[in-house]
């Protein structure tokens, strides 16, 4: 059975990205996993206890976000899995894709003109291209 990973972080594009991933999994009869990476590197050099708290709270936020996505998938008749990882975002996604031998990665990109987003569409496209080349998988960028 093929495996689809939907990387999500609760941004502007998350709802349509998750819906696209659910539709794709149902269409292909694939296993769907929602993935969230708790990356606290943005806080910079702070003391360890605070950095740990940031990672922990991000993971908690991720679990809640993925649970919402999982419930919505269930409403559409799909039993999805959830995974929360800790580490740097791009490397963690890459490692996970490799580990589970995923066939497809679904990620979202903000629409032009939306408020400031975590990362820009060109950055996402570059990341998608790198995943296609390095892992030889299908990468779907939902805009």
């Amino acid at each position, binding site marked *: 059975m093929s495996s689809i990973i*939907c990387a999500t972080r609760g941004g502007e594009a998350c709802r349509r990205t998750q819906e696209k991933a659910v539709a794709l999994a149902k269409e292909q009869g694939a296993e769907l996993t929602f993935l969230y990476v708790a990356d606290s590197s943005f806080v910079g050099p702070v003391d360890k206890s605070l950095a740990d*708290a940031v990672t922990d709270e991000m993971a908690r936020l991720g679990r809640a976000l993925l649970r919402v996505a999982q419930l919505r998938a269930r409403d559409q008749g799909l039993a999805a899995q959830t995974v929360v990882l800790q580490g*740097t975002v791009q490397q963690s996604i890459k490692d996970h894709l490799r580990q589970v031998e995923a066939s497809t990665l679904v990620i979202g990109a903000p629409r032009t003109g939306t408020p400031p987003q*975590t990362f820009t569409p060109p950055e996402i496209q570059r990341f998608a291209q790198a995943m296609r080349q390095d892992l030889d998988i299908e990468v779907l960028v939902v805009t």
Partner: protein
Amino acid sequence: MENLLVNETLLVVLILVATLVSVVARRIRLPYTVALVLVGLVITVWRPLDIELTPELILSLFVPPLIFEAAFHVDLRLLRSTLPSILMLAVPGVLLTTFFVGAIVALGTGLPFATAIVFGALIAATDPVAVVALFRELGVPRRLAVAVEGESLFNDGTAIVIFRIALVTAVSGVFDPVDGLFDFLQVALGGMAVGLALGWVTAQLITRLDDRLISATLTTLLAYGSYLVAEQMHVSGVLAVVVAGLLAGNLGVTSTSPVTKSMIFNLWEYLAFIANSLVFLLIGLDIDLPQLWSNLGSIAVAVVAVLLSRAAVVYGLSWLISLSGSRARVPPSWRHVLFWGGLRGAISLALALSLPANLPHREILQAMSFGVVLFTLLGQGTTIKLLLKRLGLIERPEHVLERERHLGRLLAIQGGLRRLERLHRDGVLIDEIWEGLRDDYAHTRNTLGGEIHRLFAEHAELERELLLQARREALQAEHGALIDALRQGLLSEKIFSELRADIERRLEALALIQASVQSRRQPPAGG
């Protein structure tokens, strides 16, 4: 009796002018403190009024309510997370500003160094009233507002203490650094201790009595009383008011009923409005334009000195804080706001007016003070909004405002419903009326709920914000539960402190996450 009537008439006219100015300022979107100074200036040119703005009038009548109100509204939790940077700017920052300004002014104007240092000290305190009012209106990040307000609260106290030491040195010609440091610590810590003691007692009384009129009166007594007691004890009245206000706002009022809370908040909003209006109008009325004109060269030097020193202190100390790895790092965009938002106001003028008549170059110092205050108010106060816009600190998309609006309505409805339920339970509302009102409220709530769902479907990122907000609320409730457990003797102080520290760290972590999702600093992570 006649004098009383004259003064009363003058007061009524001043308040009337201030009210009209604030109405017009709101329409033309000018900070109202700036508009008040301008109108004061126009009146002075047109028909000078015989009003003497004495330092006592500013310091003992206007400053206590202004500082108390500002401290009262500061969230201690947010203040704690920015405290290292606030204290760096408010203590070493004020000392460095005093020295830099003094040195540049001495070099640029030829004033004796000791005299120039007096000017450096009196102009070191920032007064961001105009800026903070704008912050509240525009909705800049709360932590930034707290940083600006917090710095101003504490640097008022330190600047006054340093000013007094510098003045004694300038008059006597003798400066003993050890004595100076000892005096500084004694006056500053003494003031804080007075504020701590009176603030704590008042907070306890407010919590226990929970009577709106008595509580409001107690806060008024605290604002003026802490200042007077501290000054009588020859310690810092301003720092006493700061600490008293922080305690009253964070320990006293938070646990009172909504009616008491609303009464106290409205009272202080009103008192601060009146005090602000009068003080800035009086500043405008008291400006001696010919004197400013004849000292234009010195004023230009003073303005340059103040701007250069502010830049050195803000950027330099922020850089040091970031090197130290402290959790209270000042983001680069905030540094620009702290620099350009460092307006000078009432405290500087009060100190300038309090200079002894026998101090050499007194008139030049006063002219420079008024000149700098005028420049910062008219130049910086009117352009800070542009800076905030340029830095993207006030970008609030319509859907975010809409969610906030819905949330506000929802909370208001819940509050109303709870009150009605209570009235019904107490037998005040008969069953039919209660049911009718309840159904109506429930209908409105459901409609609102539907609109919120629609908003979330269209703007998915709002869900993440709601999650963060809910988690913050939950942590605050956890904090409250710990306090209850401590009071009931279920927890020891040691365990309570441990658990509280963990919650505070988590709240800080949430604030950082919130700030990161609102900016572009978070790394790529998918939709």
